[in-house]
């Protein structure tokens, strides 16, 4: 039971990459990339979790209360922003691909070979 979060993360990673490998639409491919991203969030947050601990916000709890690890939460926050920006760029490329190639199917973009 305690391995479940990490198993989910590994599963998400592989399923997302499978989606990318077999994708037939660039927008679908970008969304599969977000699934892969989600696996990294889960690994990070899963690492920092402590059973029966509070969130690291001391507005209404005494400062000596055990809390979960705030560092991984800050890392995940940074990670989310970083990966969202990559998605934005990829979507812009997908828009241009549709305009240049007339299609969003990766199988049909054949301009670079050899």
């Amino acid at each position, binding site marked *: 039971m305690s391995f479940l979060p990490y198993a989910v993360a590994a599963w998400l990673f592989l399923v997302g990459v499978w989606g990318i490998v077999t994708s037939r639409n660039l927008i679908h491919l970008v969304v599969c990339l977000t699934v892969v991203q989600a696996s990294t969030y889960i690994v990070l947050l899963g690492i920092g979790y402590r059973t029966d601990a509070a969130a690291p916000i001391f507005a209404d709890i005494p400062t000596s209360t055990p809390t979960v690890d705030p560092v991984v939460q800050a890392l995940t926050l940074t990670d989310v922003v970083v990966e969202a920006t990559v998605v934005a*760029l990829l979507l812009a490329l997908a828009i241009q*691909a549709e305009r240049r190639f007339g299609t969003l199917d990766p*199988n049909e973009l054949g301009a*670079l070979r050899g």
Partner: protein
Amino acid sequence: MEVIAPLAVGAPLMAAAVIAATGSLLPRLAADLVAVAVAAATCVLCVLLLAQSSGGATVVWFGGWHPQDGVAIGVDFAVDGIGAGLAAFIAALTTAALVFSARFLEAEEAHLHVLILVFAAGMVGFCLSGDLFNMFVFFELASVGAFALAGYKVRERQAVEGSLNFAVTNSIGSFLLLTGIALVYGRTGALNLAQAGQAFAHAPADGLVVVAFALIAAGFLVKAAIVPFHFWLPDAYAVALTPACLLFSGAMSELGLYGLGRVYFTVFSGPLGSHREALEAILIGAGVLTALLGATMALLQDHLKRLLAFATVSYMGIFLIGLGTLGAAGVAATAIYVIGDGCAKAALFACVGIVQHRLGGVTQRRLFARGLRIRRTGALFALGGLLLASLPPSGPFLGKSMLDDSLIAANYGWVVAVVVACSMLTGGAVLLAAARVFGGLGTHPTGDRFSEEEGGEPEVEGSRNRTPAVMAWPAVALAAASIAVGLVPGIDRAATAAADRFVDQPTYAREVMSGQRVAVPSVSAPPLRAIDWPLGVASVLGAVGVAAIALRRSRSTGSLAAVADQLDRPLTAIRALHSGHVGDYVAWLVAGAALLGGLVALAAS
């Protein structure tokens, strides 16, 4: 100096923000001048850091958060010789690229300046950083800038496809890297390189350590374009704007190898150090495979930029061979080779940019014999080819000779033959292109089933009958720098001293965690062996020979059939693998990651 290191990253970032904020209000000339000035200033700052590094590592804790009780609670920059040297090189290339782009049409709204400055800041920050997650953030900063720069010529279909392949594969590489970092944090509770290294120092190499190293290595090797993670590189470099290509080829790929070396030596050399020989075999093997594949593919290319991209892949393999010896001598050789060869490749890309401007084409079949008009560019291009073949006594020659010496000393003498062969093949590929385009020699190449589409758009404003000074001078300066690197007295000594410190985990940990600076002892570099000079000359002659044979005997650029009939089918099969389809590339990436993990697991058992 607490000010220099942060400013080396902060200055280009702030300049980029100012240029982005003022946007089209700023006249073009002002944006150019500001960008070039800031890049040059960053170079000066990094050179200062390099000069300081002989007194020990410069450690800057951001926000003043020094370590408490052996736990690093803030983020640091830990600048040593290798890091500062690479950062200075990156800043210098950035200045050259910004000067080169001064006449580029595409830079009207100053987007190009912002992208290049932030890209450079990310790379410099990566070289200076001493914290795993901070390295990841700067790595991503540079990568996102690179994705945008690769797709910049958005009116061309290949640019869109190349940038897509680049972005998807490198993002997946980053996720692997991040997962590895998370594993290290989970076990050691540390993100700081020194602290993690101390925590791991006496730990056994169990499953988590092996997998963390494999994932981090895979992430970095995707950026470094090692087989089978390399497929994205030719696609991306062939379509990017020329100033971006200068930076990509000279500095960005090398960043991946720097990261691998840094993380290995500071964090993993403890647990994996006892399995060193097996690990060396894996890394050197991968390097050999990459070097040979890159060199062969380069010789088969018609498109000049794609040719240089495959040459870059080949050199990344060679640099990995140097790093893979996991010793100071190999690291020192790689450091010098990176700078010497980086300048040469940048000069070659600059020449291709000039050719694109003057002649309006970029493939050999379209440019055949048309380069007779721009013979000086042709001479420079040919010089670049000779430099790739490690013309004595240039920078690449020094780097290659030191590499050969370190390989012989590490009992990998047979790899020297591979390195020599690859420098012959890559140099020969460039000389072949030079002979066809600028000399009109050989038969006019015809296309084959892999022929590339041309990118027809003019990149540069101004008359097609002259080469603008801002394009010519950087090309010449870069070629001159490549030669000069080999002639600077004492550079091999400095590199060896810096490399000694790079591989020294206990001293690094002590300097970072307890704040004591430990001066770098000056060493005497071993002199080059007697065999190096004949090897260098042989490489050059071999490159000329390869070009001559290929000229005489092949009808189309894609077929080496006349040279070796048996090779035609396997070569065509390998070329077909580079299909441009992102799903293929990702499948090979996953295969490579799994293979690498399996091999490291075997090595550590």
